[in-house]
Every structure is written in C-alpha cells, then in structure tokens.
C-alpha cells in the first residue's frame, strides 16, 4: 500500500535525470514565450480595433512584445535562481 497523500519525489527518476529535465524546461519555456508573444500581439490588435478594452488595464504599444528588456526580465524571473546554485550546494 502507498500513502496517496505524499508524492514520492525522488523515487522514480534516477539522480542523473537533472540534465535531461533542464533541457525539457528550456524547451517548455521557449514554447511558453511563443504563446505569450503571440497573445500580446493579438491583444494589442484587439485593443487597437476597439474589440476589447485594454487588457489588464494596460495599453501596450507595438514594441511591447518585442522589447528585449521584457524578454530578459521573463528569463530572469524563471531561471534567475539557478545562477546562485553554485554557492548554495556542494556536491563534492
């Protein structure tokens, strides 16, 4: 019998899966960015055409979805913690 209340993390996947999992995360994040960027474009067009009021009460100009600063902030938000791992963990 298993305890249905506790997810058995660490039980199934071998320890050396981390490399593979990271690769999957990068791929997923790229696809997420595709969706976010397209959605921003559609929202902007919809606002311009008067189809919908400004989504989230923000009126975006045409540079919104293509702004590198916005993209880089998105990347930092998802992956920023990874850059500090070297000082937090010691696998020696």
């Amino acid at each position, binding site marked *: 019998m298993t305890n249905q209340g506790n997810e058995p993390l660490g039980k199934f996947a071998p320890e050396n899966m981390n490399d593979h999992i990271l*690769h999957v995360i990068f791929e997923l994040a790229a696809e997420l960015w595709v969706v976010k960027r397209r959605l921003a474009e559609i929202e902007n067009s919809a606002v311009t055409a008067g189809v919908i009021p400004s989504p989230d009460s923000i009126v975006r100009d045409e540079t919104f979805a293509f702004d590198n600063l916005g993209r880089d902030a998105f990347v930092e938000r998802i992956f920023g913690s990874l850059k500090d791992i*070297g*000082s937090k963990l010691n696998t020696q």
Partner: protein
Amino acid sequence: MANQTSNSTNRMKNGPTGRGFIGTMAAMSSYDDESYLDFIEGLRMFALKSMNPSSARALKEEITAGKFNSENPSIIETRAIADPIPVIGIRNRMLHSTQGLNWNRVLESYGKSRIALEQELTDAEKDGPGTLQWDPNFVYPEYFTVIPYHRQPGSYHSDPLSGHIYHYGTKVFHGGSNDKDEAKIERIVSLPEPIDGKVTKFLDIACAIGSGTVAAKERWPEAEVYGIELAGPLVRYAHMRATRMKSEVHFSQQLAEKLNFADNTFDLIYMSTLLHEMPIPEGRTAVKEAKRVLRPGGILVINDMVQATRPLNIWSDYDRYFDHMFNNEPYAYNYVHSDLDAFLNEEFASVESSIHGKTSTWTCTK
C-alpha cells in the same frame, strides 16, 4: 509588365519567406519561429551575462580554497573540479541546449521556405554589381568536413541554405546586436590603414557571409574589395546578400591555404575568426599565404580568440575547452595554446596586438 514590377517589388519587400527582413536577413517563416528564437536569444544572453560570471566565481572559490595543485592545471584536473559544481553544470546545459534549439528551429523555419530561398541564391549568381565564383564540385579538405562547426546542421558547406542558417544562427549568437551588421561594421571601421594610407585592394579571408566585406566596400568605396570563403553555400549567400545591398564586392570560393591571387597584390587583408577553426599547420600556412599576397608595407589584421596566458586563467581555459568539446570547435583549444604571437613575430616586420574581451587583434605589417 506593371504586374511583374509589382510582384518583384512585393518580393523584395516581403522577402523570400514572405515575412520581410530582420536587419539584413530574411525573417523566419512564421511569427512563432521568430518568437521562439527571440526567447532562445534571451536565454543565451542570460547564460552569458548571469550564469557565466556566477560559474567563474564558483570556480574561483575552489581555487581560493586550495583545491588546485598548480596555477597551470591540466584541463583534466580542472574538469575534475569544475564539472561537478552545480552552477557550472547548469550553465553548460543551458549553453548546449540553447545552441541546439537555436539551430534546429532556424533550420526548420527556413526549411519551410526552402524553394524560394534557394531560388533567390540561384537568381543572384549572375547579378551585380559584384561578382561570384564558386564550384559546386569543390573538394573540401578533410579537416573542414570532419565535424559540423558549432553544431550547425549541415555545417557551413553541405546544405544549400547553410549561409541563411549561419546568418540567423549567429543573430542569436550575437544576442541581436549584429542584426544590421553593427558588430562587423565596427570592426572594419576600426581597422588601421597602411602607413602610406593607400588602400586600393582589400581582401577579406574567410569572409563567411560577407558582412565585413561589404562594410569594407563602404569604408573604401574606391577600392577593389575581395572576399574569399571556403564554404560554397556561405559564399553564394554572401554574394546574394551583397547584391541585395548593391555592394560591388568580388566573392570567390578559395582555400585560405592556397589563394588564387598574385604575390604582393593587396594593401590590406582582414582575417577574422579563421585560425581557431583550422589545425595549427593549416593555420600557419594560411597566414603565410596572406603574407605572400600582401604588398610590402601592407597590413594583415587578424581577429581571433585570445591566446592562453601564464599563469593560466583557469575559468577561461575551462570555458574554451567546453566550447571545444561540446560545441564542435575541434581546433580551438589547440589554437589558444599555440603561441600565435611568437609565430607572427617571426613572419612579419612588425606586429602589434591588443585584447578586447575574449578576442585579440594582431596588426601585422609586411
């Protein structure tokens, strides 16, 4: 006739993918492909600007803690200590993944427009104002074909769209800072002239897609400007691109080790990021060939990876080895340990060098 003109104008405006241009390159075939690569570009910049410094700091902590037995450790010793450091492992994975995801998406996207892109290459072959010489049956040296450089699918030479793929792939590599050739133009603008100020013939050796070559024609509009490149698809792309930009540059497919020019022909020769992509003997031969076709008093400018120092910069050495092993830079690690300075000083009347980040510039006067 009016319709033909209109169609031609639309094709120029919309480009071969139908989605216009980003800077000097055809846009991706779909908006999603462009967005995907925009993200990859951002993630790569994060790896370089955030993960790299963190990784270097983590390794330095190990050095400070006395984990190394020598200030010039072997790469085996360095890897034994650096590879298990978590932040370094994640950095390595990030760089490796972004490179692979980048190439695959560029290939997939341009592949959707393959017929139009290849047709544009063919149509441009006889157009000017410049010229193109290439041989579809060119026999490449084995060192060049043994591995796809930088993991580019098809490498530089075996896909007709290698030039397109290289161009968009390097857009991501540059983090968008070279979309309009800005980085290449900056290097050409900074080139010194021979002491007599005469630049009537300019040669760009291993010109790739000809960004620097076109920039040279802009800087010296009265000069005859030549670009040679080993990879057929790259030199075809360079010519097509220069034709689109109305630049009179003469491109040809040639081996840097065996140039098809007479002795003492050129006033100024530019050789950028070539030597680290060749075995040491072939690289030395290429430098001697450049010297042969350079006129007395002329200048050869070499831009390439910084040579290794003593004591060793251990992080830089590790980083270079990672690139060598996992990013298909088969000759780069040997190159950075090849003491290029000593060789150039033996060959030329004078040599001046400077370092800018990871790149060195050698100005060699014959």
